[in-house]
């Protein structure tokens, strides 16, 4: 199994006639992603890679049932495109664009929360359920070098490191259930807690890897969620950047940053909370794969 995305998930592609979608859509369908329709304002009636394109989300939904919409639209149009998908009642909205204005992200995430829409991103590099389906650019044209099916869920705030972790797992013969790049922006939809809750329900996922970053309290929330029993499988986590805490602090011009964070967001604090919750914390990248092997058990073989 997998989370959020499998070979049955009916996918809508917004921004389907743009250059990015034209390039990536064939790699998604070749991999097995069930893309049922595309949307591009003013381009209704066209088709991309054999997928019919509609002028509006509502038009597409009259002809097709859709579980998830992936947005290839440029950053400045993301707000309206995402709101269109949210208002149409699509369950999951996956936003790839980098550089979405904070006010736009805030508005669409607020509406999504009101409507109960599941949002991944903005600034997510992609999502892959190996052997079943993939969204976005991650994995490129040779996804099998980076991904293989297996028991490890991978969730990363960094798209590059998520791909790197999957590559080293695959090279070590360990497959993944689903890999999700959460997005590196300040304001994103779902984060570690939501992914852990889904992985908890997925019988094939036996271990989850979290790759975090300094700032925000996504990892702290995850630590509390795990400690409270919300996630019962082994977790391996890596959060780089502790060295910055002891660097000379740049002079701040305002007080607001310090008042908001109050010391939260530091990698050392995140790692401490995660360890207290029983998470296996990798201090170095080379420890990630051995810790995953340890969590899976010495006798594990990914066949």
């Amino acid at each position, binding site marked *: 199994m997998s989370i959020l995305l499998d070979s049955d998930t009916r996918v809508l592609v917004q921004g389907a006639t743009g250059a990015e979608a034209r390039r990536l859509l064939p790699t998604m369908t070749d991999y097995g992603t069930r893309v049922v329709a595309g949307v591009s304002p003013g381009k209704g009636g066209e088709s991309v890679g054999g997928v019919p394109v509609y002028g509006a989300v509502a038009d597409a939904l009259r002809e097709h049932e859709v579980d998830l919409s992936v947005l290839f639209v440029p950053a400045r149009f993301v707000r309206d495109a995402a709101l269109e998908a949210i208002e149409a009642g699509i369950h999951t909205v996956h936003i790839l664009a980098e550089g979405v204005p904070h006010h736009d992200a805030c508005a669409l995430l607020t509406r999504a929360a009101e409507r109960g829409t599941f949002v991944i991103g903005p600034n997510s590099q992609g999502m892959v359920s190996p052997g079943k389906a993939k969204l976005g*650019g991650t994995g*490129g044209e040779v996804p099998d070098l980076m991904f293989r099916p297996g028991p490890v869920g991978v969730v990363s705030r960094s798209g590059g*490191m998520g791909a790197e972790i999957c590559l080293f797992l695959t090279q070590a013969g360990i497959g993944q259930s689903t890999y999700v790049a959460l997005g590196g922006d300040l*304001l994103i939809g779902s984060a570690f807690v939501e992914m852990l809750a889904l992985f908890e329900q997925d019988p094939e996922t036996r271990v989850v890897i979290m790759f975090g970053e300094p700032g925000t309290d996504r990892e702290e929330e995850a630590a509390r969620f795990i400690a409270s029993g919300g996630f019962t499988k082994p977790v391996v986590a890596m959060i*780089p950047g*502790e060295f910055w805490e002891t660097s000379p602090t740049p*002079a701040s011009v305002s007080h607001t940053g*310090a*008042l908001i964070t109050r010391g939260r967001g530091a990698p050392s604090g995140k790692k401490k909370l995660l360890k207290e919750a029983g998470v296996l914390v990798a201090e170095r990248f080379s420890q990630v794969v051995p810790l995953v092997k340890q969590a899976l058990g010495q006798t594990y073989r990914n066949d």
Partner: protein
Amino acid sequence: MSRLLENDSLTLLGEGGLPVPRFEVCADSGESARAAEHLGGRVVIKALVPVGKRGKAGAVKFAVSADEARAHADAILGMEVRRFPVKKLIVMEALDIEREIFCSISFDAPRKCPLILFSAEGGVDIEELSEHHPDKLIGWPVNILEGLQAEDALALVERAGLTGDLAEQVARAVCAMYGVFCAHDCEMIEVNPLAELADGRVVAAAGVVQLDAQALFRQPDLEAKLGVEGGNGWRPFTELEMRMREIDAIDPHVGAIRFSEMDGDIGFMVTGGGYGLSSLEALLDEGGKPATTFDITPGRYEEKMRRAVKAVLSKPGIKGLLLAGNVSNFTRVDIKVAGVVRALKEAELDFEKFPVIIRYAGPGVEEARRLIAEVPGVEWHEDEASIEDLARRIVARAYGRDER
């Protein structure tokens, strides 16, 4: 940095309906004396620098006459405030402040909403106040789709203990700040102090506006005000950083460069946010001292890479170069490597003695491997090399501890 200087911040807030003091920006003591006359004689002279705590650095002074303003201006100009040389001053009308209030608006990441922070006791010690009396700092989330209603702003300031006409004026000020926050795509606005004056008026005595760098495309007037004065946020840009900005500007449409010069001696050009951070941590662990950090967004940017590598190699005292990136999905690595190879050939160094270690993986890797082979002595790695392998190799070779 996308932070406006104080004069631009106050002007923007003033245009948004928040009362601000009268002020002039001055470049020398003569201008400062004349400004003091225009403003009625009693003025505050402040260094116009992109950092805080100017008062504690002695860069804020009161004057009661034009002559005194001239003398203070002479003293402050030429000072250095937290690494920033003072080149301009703000001369501002002096205010008779009865009470200092703190108000800021920024985004709350966990709640995904604008958050107003408000305290009826503002001033420079706001952080200590919030630590010892957290109840005196109110956090007020706003639904961005509904905006901030006047009655909500009033409820906020009344909860903080303000009453009567003062509460009304302050609530209007908070609404004006929120209006600017939304209209100009701000990431953060802070007014500290929002001052109640002896004559009963409420004025923003100081203000900081930080813009959202991701929204500058629709704030062109404000983008034009963002000069290089802010440096990299905590010190002015170095010569090498200025040169890298010029390189970045040759093509604004591909590969945006983020670059910092550091004190060390290993050219560190490892791209990708999380990958770069993990690699820097590994390098420091191995005892390596980075001379630079460098990131570039994915794209086709051979020429930018050529110039960037040459710029880093020109840094005096540099002992080696590490070029790496996480496994690429679609971006062809051979285009990047073509630029690197041209720079290395032009550098005419002996790469047996000056170590260059490169790791790229992803599309175009075969062509990249072939290109690298044209430069003897360069150490090439692909997807099998881990972050720590690379850190260990560059430290061993740059510092003469090669055990190969």
